[in-house]
């Protein structure tokens, strides 16, 4: 359905080129749920923006993003607009700023189906109510006329999700949908996304830095670091037997509820500079298992990991 092939994203900036995403490839099938995991600056959000054709103007993109056979990177603005919201929906990170503060919720929801499906205002309103019920916004009818500032953060994120659902797209890109919310609301929103997936058969690409969120939700995980895929695995396998030292580091940094005495281990060092296209494993400078070759060889993604000394080969 969605096939990202050798995607490179670079940004021209005041102090040179920034290589945000390097040679990333992955596929998303029908009603499949995959996660893109990585820390800030790993390029995960830029991948979502590239799929939607919403990258900043100073971006340069290479590769292919095939959507049901059509290359979105080569698509015209017109064709792109036909895909947006109608076939691929996106949920942005910050529900506080991603809703238009000057428009009613009703208008922000109805305009989507009025535009894409030529619905009348009346039908569009009915659809909006239906979707607001689906994302469990209480008393939807009375709240249609409200403005974003009259809702709490969690409710706003529900509205953002409702917006993504209006046209029943085949794929939803959820870009850190719970980051701006507090923990109890996070769980509700993730449950909601899981239900949506179940009810509508939508595929979801979940973009997050939180492995805890991934566990119950996605079948497959891509771990990104420095704009490259470090590891690609089925979720259960990734948690049981992480192959890449970076993944292992990430897992150790997640608190263990069964053993609270278990101290959290941070990964030493900080994310790499992205001013040069990587010539070696970008994680090598922070990797405890790195050997000399790690610092001058760029490992290819093989057997689901881009590592010269994967964990299972150590000991």
């Amino acid at each position: 359905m969605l096939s990202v092939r050798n995607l490179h994203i670079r940004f021209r900036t005041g102090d040179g080129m920034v290589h945000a995403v390097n040679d990333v490839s992955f596929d998303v099938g029908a009603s499949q749920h995959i996660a893109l995991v990585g820390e800030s600056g790993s390029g995960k959000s830029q991948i979502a923006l590239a799929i939607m054709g919403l990258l900043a103007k100073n971006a340069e993109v290479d590769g292919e993003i095939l959507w049901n056979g059509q290359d979105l990177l080569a698509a015209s603005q017109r064709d792109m607009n036909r895909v947006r919201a109608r076939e691929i929906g996106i949920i942005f990170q910050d529900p506080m700023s991603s809703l238009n503060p000057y428009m009613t919720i009703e208008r922000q929801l109805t305009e989507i189906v009025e535009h894409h499906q030529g619905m009348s205002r009346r039908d569009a309103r009915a659809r909006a109510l239906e979707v607001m019920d689906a994302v469990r916004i209480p008393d939807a009818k009375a709240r249609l006329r409200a403005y974003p500032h009259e809702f709490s953060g969690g409710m706003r994120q529900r509205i953002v999700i409702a917006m993504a659902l209006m046209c029943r797209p085949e794929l939803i890109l959820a870009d850190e949908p719970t980051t701006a919310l507090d923990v109890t609301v996070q769980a509700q929103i993730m449950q909601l996304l899981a239900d949506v997936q179940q009810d509508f058969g939508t595929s979801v690409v979940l973009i997050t830095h939180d492995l805890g969120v991934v566990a119950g939700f996605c079948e497959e995980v891509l771990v990104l670091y420095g704009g490259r895929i470090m590891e690609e695995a089925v979720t259960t396998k990734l948690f049981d037997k992480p192959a890449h030292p970076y993944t292992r580091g990430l897992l150790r940094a997640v608190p263990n509820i069964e053993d609270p005495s278990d101290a959290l281990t941070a990964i030493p060092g900080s994310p790499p500079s992205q001013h040069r296209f990587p010539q070696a494993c970008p994680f090598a400078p922070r990797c405890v298992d790195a050997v000399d070759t790690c610092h001058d060889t760029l490992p290819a993604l093989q057997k689901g990991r881009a590592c010269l000394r994967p964990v299972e080969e150590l000991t």
Partner: protein
Amino acid sequence: MLNYTLRRLLMVLPTLLILVIFAFYLMRLAPGGPFTSERPLPPAVMANVLERYGMDEPLHVQLWTYVRNIVCCFDFGPSFSQKDRTVNDVIAQGFPVTLTYGFWSAVFVLVLGIPLGIIAALRHNGFWDYTMTGLAIFSQIFPNFVLAPLLVLLFTLSWGLLPGGGWNGGQWQYVVMPAIALGTSYMASVARLTRGSMLEVLNSPYIRTARAKGLPERTIILRHALKPALLPTLTYMGPVFVYMITGSVFVDVFFSTGGIGQDFINGAYSRDYSVLLGLAILYAVLTFALTLMVDLLYAWIDPKVRAGLA
């Protein structure tokens, strides 16, 4: 909202009273008076004149009389410098003139400034953006006392299209050049303001959301971006509009339009206390009305402000 408007209107009267008291005493502090001249009047004549205008009374009595006449009979008193004219006459003759060319000037400012700003923002860093920004800066620094003669030179002397001055009851030919001369630099400011705020709005996350909805660019601009992008312009235009409809001395003098801009300056030179005070009150009332209007428009556009007013 209605409540809010009423509360604001209630504030007008006490504020006006304070304004009148201050202005009244401040004017008298300036040296000289309406009847000072190079050749001093004989004391007996002076006493007569002062008595005729009630100026022999103590100041607070004069103030009281002044306020009472306004409240009871809407009478702003006689002009001290123009014989046989009352302040009511001065305003009734001059204000319609400045109101007319000021209004059309404001229309010119908005109708040209806003679209220019939007186009510049949409072509950010492109040819039209640079052209527009360049022109805007140029017309902002281009003083109206250079622009007005230039207009007359072209439209009157070279092409003979428009009369070079006069008013003639406000026929459109007489309004065009005063309106343009008065408005051009404001038009440039509005274009730059609109461009800046439009650029900011277009970079906001909620516009990205609108793009992600696959809406056509036109809808995004008109439905999502225009309202918030106009807020700074709205704030700016409130006081500017007051300034425009109360006229400019320069325009009144250069085009001999006979508006109140001229009366204000003449009044200041000749210490025509009553005309100055009357015009100050007019100015204040208009400022009140326009700021109230801007605030209400703001509330209409921004639901958060509206919620604050309820």
